[in-house]
């Protein structure tokens, strides 16, 4: 019996929608609590003092920070938003945002476990390496862009209005309790702001992932280029968590390894829910450029890896 390409069911949609919301909320919450604490307790100059001044070295350092401060793709956005506000160069923030969901010990281990018997060491190493390289390349591109083309006006305003000294237009409260109270309100504002985008993103993702007949993708597995593109599109639609996506990717046995690698690198950097979450920080035009750039860059790198026999 032929199954239509697209069949929507409201109960199935609401079930998938709710399950991703319940899964994602704790991680966004942790991210926004960290964001509130950073706002009140991290002096702006501290980060700048320890990060390399050279843009390339700064991007490399930021892209590797996930090894020390692992974050998932949902939780990382409120954190980088706060770090940008505290004076972190936007290129470094983008490098951390793109790399941290992949270049972190939890994801490395889960990728290794998922690909046991399918070149686990090769796949987990290449996943980290490609994600790192892509994050640094995108960060360097961002470094050369004017901020007004990258950041939303209200974020840009907060960065531009930041004076050279520690403060940024208002004084921080004095005393631990007052600071914690202020951190709470910053965390609450960030949480609710990011959650609006998260809810919208998960809604679109759940609608497509439950309604799309996934068998339509199978014929594309026969060609490296089509397989890689279709696996990235699938990662975009499914909006999986980077800690578990390797287990899903490993089951696409009909697809070449390069396509699975593209799925594993592209998904944590850009998916449907992230498009909406990124909208809390970046301009629509930048997100569109980021999407196209990541798709082309990751696709090209992964397909070219066939030369090493992957």
């Amino acid at each position, binding site marked *: 019996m032929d199954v239509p390409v697209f069949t929507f069911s409201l109960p199935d949609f609401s079930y998938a929608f709710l399950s*991703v919301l319940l899964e994602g909320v*704790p991680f966004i919450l942790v991210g926004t609590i960290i964001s509130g604490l950073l706002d009140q307790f991290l002096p702006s100059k501290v980060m700048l003092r320890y990060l390399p001044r050279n843009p390339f070295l700064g991007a490399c350092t930021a892209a590797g920070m996930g090894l020390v401060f692992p974050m998932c793709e949902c939780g990382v956005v409120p954190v980088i938003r706060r770090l940008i506000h505290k004076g972190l160069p936007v290129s470094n923030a983008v490098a951390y945002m793109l790399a941290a969901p992949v270049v972190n010990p939890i994801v490395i281990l889960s990728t290794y476990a998922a690909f046991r018997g399918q070149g686990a060491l090769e796949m987990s190493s290449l996943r980290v390496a490609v994600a790192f390289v892509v994050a640094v390349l995108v960060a360097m591109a961002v470094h050369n862009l004017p901020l007004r083309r990258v950041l939303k006006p209200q974020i840009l305003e907060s960065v531009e209005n930041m004076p050279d000294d520690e403060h940024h237009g208002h004084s921080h409260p004095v005393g631990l309790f007052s600071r914690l109270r202020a951190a709470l309100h910053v965390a609450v504002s960030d949480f609710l702001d990011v959650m609006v985008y998260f809810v919208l993103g998960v809604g679109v993702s759940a609608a497509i992932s439950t309604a799309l007949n996934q068998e339509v993708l199978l014929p594309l597995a026969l060609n490296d280029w089509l397989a890689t593109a279709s696996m990235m599109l699938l990662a975009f639609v499914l909006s999986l968590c980077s800690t578990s996506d390797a287990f899903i990717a490993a089951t696409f046995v009909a697809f070449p390894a390069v396509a699975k690698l593209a799925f594993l690198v592209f998904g944590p950097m850009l998916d449907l829910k992230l498009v909406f979450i990124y909208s809390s920080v970046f301009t629509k035009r930048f997100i569109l450029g980021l999407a196209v750039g990541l798709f082309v860059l990751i696709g090209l790198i992964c397909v070219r890896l066939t030369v090493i026999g992957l």
Partner: protein
Amino acid sequence: MTLTARRYFQGASLAVWGVVALAFYYSGRISSYLHPDFHSWTVFSGFVLVLMAIGTVLLPVEEEHCDDDCGGAHGPTSAWGTALTTSLLIIPLLGAVMISPSQFGAVAVMNRGLADSITDLPGYVPFSEPPLPTEDGSIGPSGPSADLGSYLTRSPDGRIMASTMDLLYAANEPGLREDFENQDIEIIGQFFPAKKNNPNGDRFSLVRMFVMCCAADARPVAITVRALQPETFPDMSWIKVTGKATFPTEGGRTFPVIVAESVVPTEAPTETFMY
């Protein structure tokens, strides 16, 4: 909109999300949505969100320290904007809570396709356990030939209480297969009508959902059941099948087929997912 009114809207949004998380956890409904590894995260977020809601309402921010510019983004400041944000956060959540049947229906299962081999499942590795020590301390036979049969749970009438995963593993591992082949078994799953290879109309699929993280990544896993007569149950309803486990080989591939003696409706198990 005044800061006070905004605080109350924020508190309401946080409270609703927190209460939903806690209600799912304490009612056990969370088991139908998330892998057990995530349950503690749910209860954690529920408590933290409720505490944050209380803190937001009862502990107003000192205005001299935080005007609308302090965070770079504090969300909407107009009454309409705040009301819209609150609605976007609460209405879809509560709507989904009310509509969601806590399990996938036939449409999602069809769209995802049925996995009928253990090798199709995430994280599968061939069975290769080290040898176990025997009672006298010597090393016993390794892997599949170990006496797993003695560990199988049996129903009061002596049938093996099998799971979908047991039979799929057994189809792929000759040593395990010996424990199940032609044995009387009892198994619970969800009814899904056979869409192909069913010339006599007496076959259907017994489906369970295999989950890595949450229901959104669930993969339907199916075993074929051959019944005495064509069976008609609502799609994806829970049924109990008793019969014999067989493992025919077709096209060089061995797969499990349950030759059913009885098929009856049953309650959903406490743990609806397989991991």
